[in-house]
């Protein structure tokens, strides 16, 4: 919400500085005077407007939480960027339960379908029995 206010203020400042500059140029055209430079208050207003918009943009970054394979909500590790050090960046993989090298452990292309199916039917039978 606060970032919305910043966006609004920044946007208004930018619009106002643009309008001021337009007025100034109209005035100069009307009276045939040559403008050497734009007055500093307009420049300053523009810079301030841009800065506030940038602050609002950075402030409104909101990384979504992730889900671990056990359906636990894992909030993002850092608000803006990922960790630089590898040993810290990989922490997130361990909390989620899937790492980049999981394929070497799961090896889905070598899965023993019959064995897994038998395991499942044994389990189901046991569950029904209980």
């Amino acid at each position, binding site marked *: 919400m606060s970032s919305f206010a910043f966006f609004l203020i920044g946007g208004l400042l930018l619009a106002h500085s643009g309008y001021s500059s337009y007025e100034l140029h109209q005035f100069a055209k009307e009276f045939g005077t040559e403008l050497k430079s734009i007055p500093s208050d307009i420049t300053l207003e523009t810079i301030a407007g841009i800065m506030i918009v940038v602050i609002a943009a950075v402030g409104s970054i909101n990384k*979504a*939480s*992730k*889900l*671990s*394979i056990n*359906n636990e*909500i894992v909030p993002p590790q850092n608000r803006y960027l990922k960790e630089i050090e*590898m*040993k*810290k960046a*990989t*922490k997130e*993989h*361990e*909390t*989620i*339960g*899937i*790492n980049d*090298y*999981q*394929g*070497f*452990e*799961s*090896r*889905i*292309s*070598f*899965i*023993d*379908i*019959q064995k*897994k*199916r038998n*395991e*499942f*039917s044994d*389990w*189901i039978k046991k569950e029904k029995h209980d």
Partner: protein
Amino acid sequence: MAHEISTEALKDKLLNISYSGVYAQFHPEQLLDLYNEVSNFLSINSDSIDVTELFNLTELRFYLAILTHHDVDSKACLDRLTDQFGRDRSQRIKILQSIYLEAMGDNEGAKLLLNGDPDELDLSRRLVTFSRNSSDPEEYIACLKFYLDVQPSDLITWAELADQYQQLGHYERAIFCLQEIIQQEPFAYNIFYKIGLNYYYLYCREFSPKLEKKDKVLESANILRKARDHFLRTIEICETYSKAWLGIYLVTKAPINDVLRAKYKDNSAMGQLLSENDKLREVSAKKFTDLSGIDEATLKSDLSVSATPSA
């Protein structure tokens, strides 16, 4: 809690599971839950998600349906995929078809489907699995090796071969296979852990407290050091990998430490090994108990019962 889970997060989770193939190691109960989750997700969201994601999730649903005996649904998923991508053009689809046939008990039909073209390497790789039988594990290994001669850069197959060797107790060969993976994926920390584990098993086989010969003892100590160093490398890449912390703890508690302390303390290399192990003991126990939630007393009492970390 359920209402807080956004569709986007759920989709990301399911896609992640699909890409990593992690469900291959799931317990039946987890498989059934996941199957229900995917089916529900697809029946609600199939119109609103991206087409690529839709077909990836359909593939996941196919596998889960097969594994949980939902044969009608698996056939429906397979038909949906073949309608979209054609019967013969994609290796991935052919593999799905062969898996369906295999699950229905038609092994010959599945083999025939995979046998078509020797250039289609993914199919050849799947064909290798048909040589797997419990009475003769060597045959499966021979087929894996034959495939690796054709395609030496296939890392998944190296991992499978390592697993087979480990099951048979050929730990040195398993380590060799795992090192092949490390050469191409130098940050695969779970592989470093597995190398460490294989060294640890090797140590457990080589060493017994009754060993008299000095060479044998020192050799075992060196194997144990390698195990510890590989566990440490895992920690260097991922500091919350609790299994590796447990591995380090087991190494520092291994009975060979006492033998070394009693007899070979003057050997400079062994002296260093002992002092390093002493430093690591408390740290690793603390880290492991912090990460796993198991308290230290349970850890110590469990160790006296069994002295091998889990695979």
